[in-house]
C-alpha cells in the first residue's frame, strides 16, 4: 500500500494539488514524506503535520499505508 499524502487550505493551493500517493520504500519519517513529495519546496516552519489524523512532529515515524497530512495553522471557530 502506498502512503497517501494530503494537503489542505493555503498549502493545497501553493503545492497545486490536494494529494499524492507515494511508494513507502525509503520513507522513515514525516519529514521524508514531505521531501519525497515536494523535492523543490522547503516546508514553511508553521506547517502542521498529522499521521492517520493525529498531530505529529516532523520526525515521527511513518509506516506503509499511513495517511500523512500537511496543513497551515488552523483557523476555525
Amino acid at each position, binding site marked *: 500500500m502506498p502512503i497517501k499524502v*494530503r494537503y489542505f487550505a493555503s498549502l493545497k493551493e501553493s503545492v497545486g494539488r490536494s494529494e499524492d500517493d507515494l511508494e513507502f520504500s525509503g520513507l522513515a519519517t514525516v519529514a521524508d514524506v514531505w521531501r519525497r513529495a515536494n523535492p523543490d519546496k522547503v516546508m514553511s516552519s508553521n506547517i502542521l503535520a498529522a499521521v492517520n*489524523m*493525529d498531530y505529529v512532529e516532523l520526525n515521527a515515524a511513518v509506516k506503509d499505508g499511513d495517511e500523512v497530512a500537511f496543513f497551515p495553522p*488552523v483557523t*476555525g*471557530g
Partner: protein
Amino acid sequence: MEIKLCAEPFDPWAQIQSYQHSAQDMAGKFGATNVFIGTMRDFNEGDDVQGMTLEHYPGMTEKQLEKIVAEAAQQWPVIDALVVHRVGDILPNEPIVVVAVWTSHRGDAFDACRYIMEALKSRAPFWKKELLKSQAERWLLKNTDGYL
C-alpha cells in the same frame, strides 16, 4: 456527547434545545449549562467581509473535536456536551460554532466550555478563507489566543 459538522446554516438555540430535550438521562442531573456561540462578522482586520469558506479535514476534524471534548470531561465533571460547527460557504451573521456544556455546578460548566472552545480554535482542523467586499480573497493566517 455529540459532535456535528453542518454544511447548511443552523439555529444554535434550536440545536441546543433539541439536544437537551433528547438527552433524557441528564434530566434532573444538571444545574448549569454554559453556551458559547461564534458568529460570522462582516468585518475583519479593518476590511469589509462579504463571505467566507470554511475548509476542513473530514475525519480528522471530528477525531480532534472528540478528543478535545474527552479531555474536558477528564478535567471537569461534564455530564454532557454538544459541539456544532459549520463547514462550507458562510455569510455574515450566520453562526459558525456552538459549544454547550452541561454540569452540576456553574464553575465546571464555564471552565469546560472555555477549554473546549479554546482547544477547538488552536487544534481542530478548520481553515477560513474570506471573500472581501473588494472581491479579494484571503486565507486567515492564524487564530488569536482567547486567553490573552
